Each structure stands twice: as structure tokens, then as C-alpha cells.
């Protein structure tokens, strides 16, 4: 189980407090679909995904991105019990959505990159390290109920 120091928690909370979840969510999901086009396999009913600008401007992508990042907010609130917090979502992603957990790692890393573009120099190596721990913990938690 991943353990966060008080400093890491405070770093994560401080960054999260400044994130526009709606905007960042759309950006994160959009970039996932652009940079790793095979991830589009889960979104056949999202309409126009034919180009990077189509993807980034697609309203369904934005809406779903917001949903995903809002859910990520639960991780920030439950850093001491990620597995518990994401148990139901883990079952959903396995049994209903059939998403390869590798995708959670891809999205987590895209999120880190977006934080870097938004926060610039403020996104120091230490801040990144705390966030890598979090996205990795979430990816593991989401994969935990797979069978």
C-alpha cells in the first residue's frame, strides 16, 4: 500500500486546490486520445475524433474528462485508502468497461504532464514525485479488483 508523508499530502493538496477540474479533465482525456490514439477504442460513440483539434474540442471528451478528473478528486481526499476509495470503480472498469489497467498508467502520466504545463517552474521535481506516487497509487487501486 502506498504511504504518503505529511509533506507529500500537503504538496498534493496545494496543487489540487489550484486545478480547474473541468478544464484540466478535458485536456487530460483529450491528450490521452491524441497522444495514444489506440485509447480511442473505448470511445466509439463520442463522435468526431478525427484530428487533434477535433478531439480537443469535442464536447463529449470534455464532459467525460471532467467526470474522470472529478473522480480523481476522491483520490486526493482518500490518500490513505486508495484501494477502498476506488473499489467500486475498479469493479466497474473490469466487469463493465473492460479497460486494460495499462490505460490508467497512461492517463496518470498525461495528467502529470498537464500539471507541468499549467504550473511551470512551480511543478518542481519534488512536486512531480508526490504526484507520480498519487497517480501510480490510483492506477493500482483501479486495477485492484480485476479478475
Amino acid at each position, binding site marked *: 500500500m502506498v504511504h504518503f508523508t505529511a509533506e507529500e499530502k500537503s504538496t498534493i493538496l496545494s496543487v489540487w486546490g489550484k486545478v480547474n477540474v473541468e478544464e484540466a479533465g478535458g485536456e487530460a482525456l*483529450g*491528450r490521452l486520445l*491524441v*497522444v495514444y490514439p489506440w485509447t480511442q477504442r473505448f470511445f466509439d460513440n463520442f463522435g468526431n475524433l478525427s484530428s*487533434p483539434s477535433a*478531439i*480537443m474540442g469535442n464536447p463529449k471528451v470534455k464532459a467525460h474528462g471532467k467526470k474522470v478528473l472529478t473522480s480523481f478528486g476522491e483520490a486526493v481526499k482518500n490518500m490513505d485508502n486508495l484501494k477502498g476509495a476506488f473499489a467500486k470503480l475498479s469493479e466497474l472498469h473490469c466487469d463493465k468497461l473492460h479497460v486494460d489497467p495499462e490505460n490508467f498508467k497512461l492517463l496518470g*502520466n498525461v495528467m*502529470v*504532464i*498537464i500539471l*507541468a*504545463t*499549467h*504550473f*511551470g*517552474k512551480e*511543478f518542481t*521535481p*519534488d512536486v*512531480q*514525485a508526490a504526484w*507520480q506516487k498519487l497517480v501510480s497509487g490510483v492506477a493500482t487501486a483501479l486495477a485492484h479488483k480485476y479478475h
Partner: protein
Amino acid sequence: KVLSAAHKNNINNIKAAWKATGGHAGERGAEALERMFLSFPTTKTYFPHFDMSHGSAQIKTHGKKVADALSNAVNHLDDMPTALSALSDLHAHKLRVDPVNFKLLSHCLLVTLASHHSAEFTPVVHTSLDKFFAAVSTVLTSKYR
């Protein structure tokens, strides 16, 4: 070819993105290494002799080495296996860095570039750079067995 020359856009994106680092490529290389050592501590096992503190001279020097190699790759996008042949041999026979680590350094290079050059780091440029680092990684591990 490892990186298809038909993707002219890719090539232009990569060259432009690397040019955006200005004279700071060496610093970016060092920062990427620092990020990697902090975020992915297992990568430190390849550098047991390194001073890992912030600002370490060894990390600065090594960062410049990495950046220079990448600059060379950028100048030989059509021809990376030949241009990187010596480095490829080195990684296969001497360094033997497990292939998983190239992804970790590539990610930290992306984070570094994203944080310093956010305006240029569009989704399209992000894609091209990700592909580029993956292609370099493939070349560097191509002679492993």
C-alpha cells in the same frame, strides 16, 4: 526506418520543440534526470556512484551528455540507427539498462519540456516528442539480444 520520414509534420514539430530549448538543452537533460531519480527511485540503481543532491555536478554533466545525444538524434531523424549506433552498442554491451527505464526517462523529459515550454507543448507537439523519445529508446535497446 524507425521514425517514418513520411511524417514531415512530426519531424518539424520535433526540431522546433528541441530548438525551443534554446541554449538550455543541457539543463533540461539534467532536470529530467533529477525528476526521474526522485519520481522513480529504482532508476538510481544504475548510478550508485552519483551524488544525487539537487545541483549535483555529476547530474549536470550527465544531463548534458543525454541532451547532446538527443540533439544528435534530432539532426538525424531519418537515420537514427546509424547516428546512434555507438550509443546503442554501449547500452547493449556495457550499460545494459533495463528497457523499462527508457520510458521513465522519456516521461521525465516530456514533463521537463512541458514545464519550461508550455506554450509550445501543444497536444500535437506532445505526440511527436513522445514518438521521438520512444523511437530513440527503441534504437538504444535494439542490440540487446
